[in-house]
C-alpha cells in the first residue's frame, strides 16, 4: 500500500469498506438474510407456543380463547407464517451444517442449495398445511 501511495501521478482511490449497497444481491446473500429474518420471526413466534401450552395447562375456557384465535383468519395467517419460517429456517440451518462440514461451498452447489432452501421451505409448508386440513 505505502509504496503505491508514493508513486507519482494521480492517487489511487483509497479502498472502501465492503458495504451492502456496493454489491449485487446474489441468491446466497438473499437466503442468508432470509435465514436471519426467519430466525428473528421464530423468536417472536415461540410466544405462540408458550400461549398454547399455558392455555392447555389451564382450564377449558382459557384454552377456548387460544383456539378461537388460532382458528380465526389472522390466527391462521400467523400460524402459516410461523410454519413457513420454521421450515425455511430448518432447511437453511441444515445448509449451514453442510457448510460447516466443508461441503457445498462451491459455485454451482452453493446456488443450488440456496434455491433448494427457498423452494423446499415453501413446498414443506404447503404439504404440511395440506396434511393439516386433510386430517382435521
Amino acid at each position, binding site marked *: 500500500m505505502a509504496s503505491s501511495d508514493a508513486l507519482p501521478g494521480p492517487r489511487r482511490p483509497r479502498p472502501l469498506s465492503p458495504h451492502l449497497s456496493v454489491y449485487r444481491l446474489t441468491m446466497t446473500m438473499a437466503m442468508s438474510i432470509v435465514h436471519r429474518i426467519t430466525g428473528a420471526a421464530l423468536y417472536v413466534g415461540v410466544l405462540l*407456543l408458550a400461549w398454547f401450552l399455558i392455555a392447555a*395447562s389451564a382450564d377449558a375456557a382459557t384454552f377456548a380463547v387460544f383456539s378461537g384465535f388460532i382458528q380465526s383468519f389472522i390466527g391462521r395467517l400467523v400460524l402459516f407464517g410461523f410454519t413457513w419460517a420454521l421450515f425455511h429456517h430448518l432447511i437453511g440451518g441444515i445448509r449451514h451444517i453442510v457448510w460447516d462440514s466443508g461441503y457445498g461451498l462451491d459455485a454451482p452447489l452453493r446456488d443450488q442449495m440456496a434455491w433448494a432452501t427457498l423452494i423446499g421451505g415453501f413446498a414443506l409448508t404447503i404439504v404440511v398445511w395440506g396434511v393439516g386440513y386433510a386430517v382435521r
Partner: protein
Amino acid sequence: MAEHPSDLRTPLGRVRFLGAARTGTTDAWFVHVTSIALIPLTVGFVWLILDLLRKDYNGVRAELARPIPAILLLAFVLAGIVHMELGMRSIIVDYINGQSRAWALAANTLFAALLALACVYATLRIAFT
C-alpha cells in the same frame, strides 16, 4: 472509540490480535450444536402439532400427558430457546452498539429465560395434573 481521543492507533490497530470478542466463538458454535438437535426435534414437533390439530381441549391434554409427546415438547422448547437466545445475541451484537447493546442483551436473556420457564412449567403441569 471516542473514549480514547489521545489514542493515536487506528481502530484496527487497537483490536488486532485480541481475538474474537469475549465468548463470540463459543456462542456461535453452540448455535450450531443446538441446531443439530433441532433438526429431529422440529420434525417431531411439527408431527405432534399436526396430531394435536384435530383434538379438542381434553384430547390435547391427554396427548400431552403421555411421556413421549411431553418429553419431545420439553426437548424442543429447551433446545429451541437456548438456540434462539444465542442466535438473537449475534443479531444484537451485529446491529446495536454501546450502552443499548448491554440492555438489549439483558432483555434477550430475560425474555428467553421467562419463556423457557413458562413453557416448561406449563408442559409439566399438563403432564402431572
